[in-house]
């Protein structure tokens, strides 16, 4: 195993670059307040995240299936979903997130904290887990945490969708980081993707409806159903 790692060092190097880009996109999205920018960042992140597995050591051999899957994934994560969100953002009048629950600077600091925490967790996991690439796990956990953070700290519905997407990316990366071998047929992974796509579409439709009902996509407006 160690020999193999050494042999693929150069590829790993490339993977590290991609991972760094992912973290960068995460931090950017935490600091950004323009919805269109966010969508663009997500498109970028989607493409990068889709590519990462193929630059990792244990995906050494490319099957036809995996190539097809890569194409589909690029298509969905890089094109379809961002495209869909782009149209959604275009349709609603609001272009930027105002008054987030947690401010942008604080969010950036939170992002940095997530990276630290992720590094810490990764370090702890070493005891029980033979992870080859620390950065991968750090990136994955950071992305996941940042996604959840966006979900909780942003009020605009569209930002929440983006948060959800980022969380999914994080989970996908964790899956990639942890699962050494694919036990799954590609059908299953395709199914996961499809679910994601449909999910985003439905969310988009709801966002659209929220916009037409309230003239805004602020989830603070969505607080009528409560029990207190």
């Amino acid at each position, binding site marked *: 195993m160690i020999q193999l790692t050494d042999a693929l060092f150069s590829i790993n190097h490339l993977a590290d670059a991609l991972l760094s880009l992912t973290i960068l996109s995460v931090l950017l999205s935490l600091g950004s307040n323009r919805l269109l920018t966010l969508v663009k960042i997500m498109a970028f992140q989607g493409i990068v995240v889709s590519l990462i597995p193929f630059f990792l050591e244990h995906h050494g051999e490319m099957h036809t299936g995996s190539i097809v899957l890569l194409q589909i994934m690029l298509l969905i994560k890089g094109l379809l979903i961002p495209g869909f969100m782009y149209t959604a953002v275009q349709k609603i009048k609001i272009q930027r997130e105002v008054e987030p629950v947690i401010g942008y600077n604080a969010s950036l600091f939170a992002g940095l904290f997530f990276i630290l925490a992720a590094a810490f967790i990764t370090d702890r996991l070493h005891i*029980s*887990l033979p992870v080859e690439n620390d950065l991968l796990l750090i990136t994955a956990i950071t992305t*996941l945490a940042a996604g*959840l953070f966006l*979900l909780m700290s942003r009020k605009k*519905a569209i930002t*929440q969708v983006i948060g*959800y997407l980022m*969380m*999914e990316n994080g*989970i996908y990366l*964790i*899956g990639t980081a*942890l*699962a*050494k*071998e694919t*036990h*799954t*047929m590609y*059908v*299953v*992974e395709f*199914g*996961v993707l*499809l*679910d994601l796509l*449909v*999910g985003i579409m*439905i*969310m988009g439709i*709801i966002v659209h*409806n*929220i916009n037409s*009902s*309230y003239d805004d996509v602020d*989830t603070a407006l*969505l*607080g*009528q*159903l409560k*029990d207190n």
Partner: protein
Amino acid sequence: MLELLILIPLHVGIIAMFLPARLGRGLLVVTALLHLQLSVFAWMGKLTPQLPDYFAVTNEGILVLLVTSFVFLFISLYAVSYMNETEISSEPIYNGCTLLFLATMSMVAMADHLIVLWIAIEATTLMSAPLIFLHRSKTALEATWKYVMICSVGIALALLGCFFVVLSMDLGGVHTPITFSSLKEIAPQLDPVWLKAGFIFLVIGYGTKMGLAPMHTWLPDAHSEAPSPASALLSGALLNCAFLGVYRGHQLMYQAGLGDFSSAVLVGFGLLSMLIAAIFIFNQTGYKRMLAYSSIENMGIIAFGVGIGGLATYGAMLHLIHHSLIKSSLFLSSGNVLLGYGSKLIDKTGNMAKLFPKTFTAFFAGFAGISGFPPFGIFVSELLIIIGAFQQGKTWSISIFILALTLIFAGASRLVTKMCFAACDDPEVLVKENWARTLPSFALLLASITLCIWLPDPLYQTILSAIATIGGNI
């Protein structure tokens, strides 16, 4: 061809989207009948999966499938008359989406593959979201948004759980397909720490869907805003499907010898759900919300029963069946109430005993049933769970369990007596009740009574084999 159970509603559903409403309704009923038939065939073992890698007939799955199919039939019969009276912008969407929903639920019930199960459960969320939004009101929109967001987040976490389970396979050096049937064999070799972590995420993820507190927050909103047949489906069928996800996780843990951990988690979630439900049932203002919280409570009871193990597991399975029957009946009755009074607020209702005698009978009988009065089956299931818990020596848990049950009964009976007997401020009947909309409720209640008097032997055996996989016995 087991997959017919998925394919038929899937295709018919897509077709129904483009058919006129009346035809769609007919199609709904016909498909429901066909589906029930096929479910029974599957139960009898006459159907084999074409894709054995992904689907399988399991005892617990078939149980959920049968309940789903049975409840679905009566809900679709009810919907025929209900949709006549209610203003719904696009009925074809209802017809289509319920069928798609049925397809995804059947998929959950038959899924054997870890990720396929995840896909199916996520798909149920997506297919049922349009049903909740059917009324197109602002509150419906809000409910849908919360439903989709919270469930999606939850289920995304379940995916993480799936990855952890796969990781535990890797660490254990196991190489089998990640289907439950093959994992069963090698479960003890799995890495315990990561399996536990996986289970935690699975429980949180599917528990969100199942309505376990504190992930239950979407449930009262969605159930109260959806049109009544859809609420009945959500409560009577969907929650079971989500439970199946949790159940499979627990199964895996049990087979891996980590049953104690997962039991403790389930008991904790169960009790928390019941207490949370108790808090919100007291002084609840909306009757559909009350029923929704009651669903949370009952899911808590089921989780508790499964967690306790032994005799309680059998009780939990019975509870699952009877809860579906009774709760969907209650939601159907609540549809009549909504039509009759035109409001979801308990304060706007009243004197049902006089204004809507049939609905009243069904509603009150349902309430008595859900509270555990004989001759309804929940009497037996709750008794079994209590007995099981005492047998396991879980005295503290059972004290909380009994306390919560009593509190919930106290809260709910106050509201129900108010609805049924208190004077109504504005006793104007908007839509009169009729047999077409009350018979399905009665039929579901009757089914519960029947199963309480006479439980067919095959069903009994199925339940026994199902619970045997998590160490349940009687």
